[in-house]
């Protein structure tokens, strides 16, 4: 007797089925990239969402009176009266020029350019200044006095990052749905191709679950193989991007290089791919068999 156990239904031998692992692989690859996006953006949002900022800046723009220094001193006086403020110091013109140097070289900076005066405000630890009251007080000193609180735009940036993470999550869900649809289409094709064998098994008394298991195990196998392929390529891609970003030291980019937990989730993607394929295949077969007498 031949010891080799042959598959009861020769699934996966037609041309369309042979391509399926690559389609699943591509989808898992895209899901891996979306996952990296979710992880990176969530991490960045979390980081941004908890700013430990103990400084703010007040900008005093020159006005027609030309006495910017006097207005600056009045602003400092208002600031130091706020109990949250530890220290308020006017930044010198030289320091302002140094800040502008990366954009406008010192040589091209015209000497009579009216530059705003900046006040560096250091806050007491954990204290929050009454910005509304300060803004109101500054308004009495004339136009062009602005408080630049980094926490405001950091909050907005954090919110934007969280929104992007949600979008990346939705993309992952869509990829999962597309994967399920592919599994359904492929299972229906396989049911049509192997209709006679399925009917024969049904007439021999095979339970629906027995027949469904044949399809679902094949779908699981294809999902795992395709998923492993896609996840491996995604891991290599993300590692490569991470290394490139690291070499650039470009902190402006989000750190898309996955850390160990991210790689663990990436490693779970083939399992998820396999399970989605197996489950949808099973449901498709069971629904088709219900139409048989």
């Amino acid at each position, binding site marked *: *007797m*031949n010891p080799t*156990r*042959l*598959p*009861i239904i*020769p699934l996966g031998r037609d041309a369309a089925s042979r391509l399926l692992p690559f389609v699943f692989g591509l989808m898992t690859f895209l899901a891996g990239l979306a996952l990296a996006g979710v992880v990176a953006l969530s991490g960045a949002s979390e980081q941004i969402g908890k700013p430990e900022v103990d400084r703010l800046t007040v900008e005093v723009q020159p006005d027609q009176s030309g006495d910017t220094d006097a207005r600056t001193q009045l602003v400092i006086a208002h600031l130091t009266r706020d109990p949250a403020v530890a220290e308020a110091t006017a930044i010198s013109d030289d320091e302002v020029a140094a800040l502008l140097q990366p954009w406008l070289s010192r040589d091209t900076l015209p000497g009579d350019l009216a530059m705003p005066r900046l006040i560096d405000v250091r806050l007491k630890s954990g204290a929050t200044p009454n910005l509304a009251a300060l803004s109101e007080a500054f308004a009495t000193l004339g136009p062009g006095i602005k408080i630049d609180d980094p926490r405001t735009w950091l909050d907005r940036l954090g919110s934007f990052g969280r929104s992007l993470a949600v979008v990346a999550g939705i993309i992952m869900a869509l990829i999962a749905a597309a994967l399920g649809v592919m599994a359904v289409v492929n299972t229906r094709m396989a049911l049509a191709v192997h209709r*006679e*064998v399925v009917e*024969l*098994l*049904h*007439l*021999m*008394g*095979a*339970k*629906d679950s*027995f027949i469904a298991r044949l399809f679902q195990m094949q779908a699981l196998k294809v999902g795992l193989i395709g998923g492993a392929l896609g996840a491996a390529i995604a891991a290599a891609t993300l590692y490569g991007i991470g290394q490139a970003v690291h070499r650039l030291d470009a902190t402006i980019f989000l750190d898309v290089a996955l850390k160990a937990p991210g790689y663990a989730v990436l490693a779970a993607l083939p399992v998820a791919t396999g399970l989605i394929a197996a489950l949808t295949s099973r449901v498709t077969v069971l629904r088709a068999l*219900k139409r048989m*007498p």
Partner: protein
Amino acid sequence: MIRQRTPASAPTLSSAFIRFESVGLRYGLGPEVLHDLNFAIEPGEFRYVLGPSGVGKTTLLRLLYLSLRPSRGLITMFGHELATTPRADLAALRRRIGVVFQDFRLLDHLTVVENVALPLRIAGASEAEIRQHVPELLGWVGLTDQMNARPPTLSGGQKQRVAIARAVITKPDLLLADEPTGNIDSALGLRLLRLFEELNKVGTTVVIATHNEALVTQRPHSIMRLSGGTLEELAAVAA
């Protein structure tokens, strides 16, 4: 010689193993191809369904192996009224039926052994049981040397015997055969019929659909003649 035994409209139905009552069948919205079938088959019987090609013998067998549901009437199989039997329970009833299809329906991608083992796998038999029973049965039908062959390489007669082995491997309560002698010479046909008779002797109820009256005369058993979509029950005596 064939003589009428009982009128088709008045079968003994009370203790029937298989019972058809006023059964009619139509495909879709077409005309009825079978109408007013009334008969009962008792355990251990050997019956022929006799009639010319195209008269509906295969359709009647399909009703018997639960491939079709009747358009009207009641069918009882193994004490279960099919109209009220939950779909999930029909699989267990089908496992009590062995079928030798007219076109054999062997799976070309499987070996002879795997084809014959299929009903055992469906029934959940262990590998040890399969390894014990399948070669034994293949020896009985004379196919020991073809165990690892695939159906496309077999002759018509060999395929027929594989189909029979597959149909009887689970020792079914009911064996149905659709034109089992249709593709083979008369000598081999007689040998196959003897094989069916041996199975019948050990308790399997056998129903054979055939158009071959000569064969029926040579191996006489109860006969149901199908004509014009209706059935008359006859009894046969030895020639």
